[in-house]
């Protein structure tokens, strides 16, 4: 079964198409970083992975999407696209946290040393970051605790208080590199681990589709982690 995966929760637009029969092996992938032009880039990227892989949209068995946390506007482009496509095709959706997708690539761990924890960090603006903790277990990582939003200082103080070796990854680490550099017993992952991995998304979705761990399109909701009340802008509609 073919699976289309997309994540637009950070400044990257990522799209991949994979085959669940092949354990979610990626047939084609597009990664566009840094532009924040999600609405412009996502549809052409989807067309591109279809052309590249020779898979037509009506051959898809499921759509997988990163639901954040991340940039609200970017996030909504991916979630809306995934929901509406799945609804029109009559297929289910596998949703995954964008933090999971930063922590998931197997190569992330191969690169590190003897880390006990992986902590993906996504820039949340206003000097805050989204993050979660993942314990390194045989064969991968397992999340411990909730997805959170908070100040960079609080996250660093929290990690500093522990005694475990930490592998950091994500655009929040890049943005606050100097602060994170002061954290003991930590290492920063390379730039290839800055954004949610859509290859990991397709792979993870292949397993979930197998176990029928999917939802219907109308049950896919963005993970904002911030109340919209906090976002009140008394802007005039035009």
């Amino acid at each position, binding site marked *: 079964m073919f699976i289309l995966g997309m994540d637009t929760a950070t400044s990257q637009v990522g799209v991949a198409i994979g085959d669940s029969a092949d354990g979610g092996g990626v047939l084609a992938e597009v990664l566009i970083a840094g532009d924040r032009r999600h609405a412009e880039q996502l549809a052409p990227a989807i067309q591109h992975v279809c052309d590249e892989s020779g898979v037509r949209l*009506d051959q898809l068995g499921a759509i997988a999407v990163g639901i954040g946390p991340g940039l609200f506007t970017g996030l909504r482009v991916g979630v*809306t*696209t995934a929901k*509406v496509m799945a609804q*029109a095709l009559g297929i289910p959706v596998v949703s995954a946290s964008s933090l999971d997708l930063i922590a998931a690539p197997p190569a992330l761990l191969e690169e590190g040393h003897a880390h006990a924890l992986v902590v993906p960090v996504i820039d949340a603006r206003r000097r805050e970051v989204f993050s979660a903790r993942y314990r390194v277990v045989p064969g991968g990582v397992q999340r411990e605790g909730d997805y959170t939003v908070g100040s960079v200082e609080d996250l660093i103080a929290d990690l500093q208080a522990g005694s475990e070796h930490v592998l950091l990854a994500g655009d929040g680490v890049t943005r606050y590199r100097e602060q994170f550099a002061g954290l003991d017993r930590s290492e920063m992952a390379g730039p290839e681990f800055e954004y949610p991995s859509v290859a990991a998304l397709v792979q993870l979705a292949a397993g979930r589709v197998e176990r029928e761990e999917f939802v219907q399109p109308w049950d896919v909701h963005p993970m904002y982690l911030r109340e919209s009340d906090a976002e009140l802008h008394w802007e005039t*509609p035009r």
Partner: protein
Amino acid sequence: MVAEAILAIETSCDETAAAVVAHGTEILSSVVSSQVDLHARFGGVVPEIASRAHVELIGPVIADALGDAGVELRDLTAIAATSGPGLAGALLVGVSAAKALALVADLPYVGVNHLEAHCYAAWLEQPNLEPPLAVLVASGGHTLVVIFEGHANMRVVGQTVDDAAGEAFDKVARHLGLGYPGGPLIDRLARDGDPAAIAFPRAMPGEPDFSFSGLKTAVVQHRRRDPDGAIADVAASFQEAVVDQLVDKLVRAADEAGASTLVLGGGVAANSRLRARVAEVAEATGRAAFLPPPDLCTDNAAMIAATAWWRLQSDGPTPLDAGVNPSLSIT
């Protein structure tokens, strides 16, 4: 098979809407899911709340529009969405949804100018209108007069330099403690008041452009001087000052363009006093007045589909890498 029908999506402000329209004139379905209750406690539209609601409502609204019309995606000619002007985050939801459908059904996508669409609302009801038309588009977000010379051929001849007319209604209603949205509340209250009781200023006389911020200030000042005066008189006099300005600029534009038909669009076009006055002035100046029903004046997706129909013929499809433009104007 339904011949030549377009599915359109509208999410520029606080209505999540989808519609199927055949031949740019025949409404097969028009679904509008209003978020007004979500925003009422804030006294205005909160962009982030609107954007979040659009994501939740868009799927069901599209399904209802297709279901009500009795069509399948593959029966359609194109998929359209409002691409501006409007709230950026809100527009992105509708445009993303439309592109997703266009990809799945392998149909052309058409990005539509919301202001052009308000002008086209009239065509839905009256496809035989004779251009040039003088169109007043007045709502909570925009206030402008457009001369509609022909399909895909419109120009703005006047617009507000500060607040939109509907915004003035909302602000004054809030000041008078009436609630939100202000337009219908003031309209109702004004029926019990005297429109000549208070001489509020008529801004920018002789100019093509509108201004409403001074009027709001005048209402506040008047209330300070006369806190016990009848509030129905304040409402009626305020409304009259707004309507005078709207009608004045519309007629002025019609005179200059030689337009023999006056058309209304936008939420403020549902105001009963404005409708009566436009009908009156048309009669007095030997013109026709076309006042679309209120549900076509307020934001809806049928008008987006109608506009897309004509734009598809004049300009062809919009590329899938086109984005949104929150401050798009009519050019």
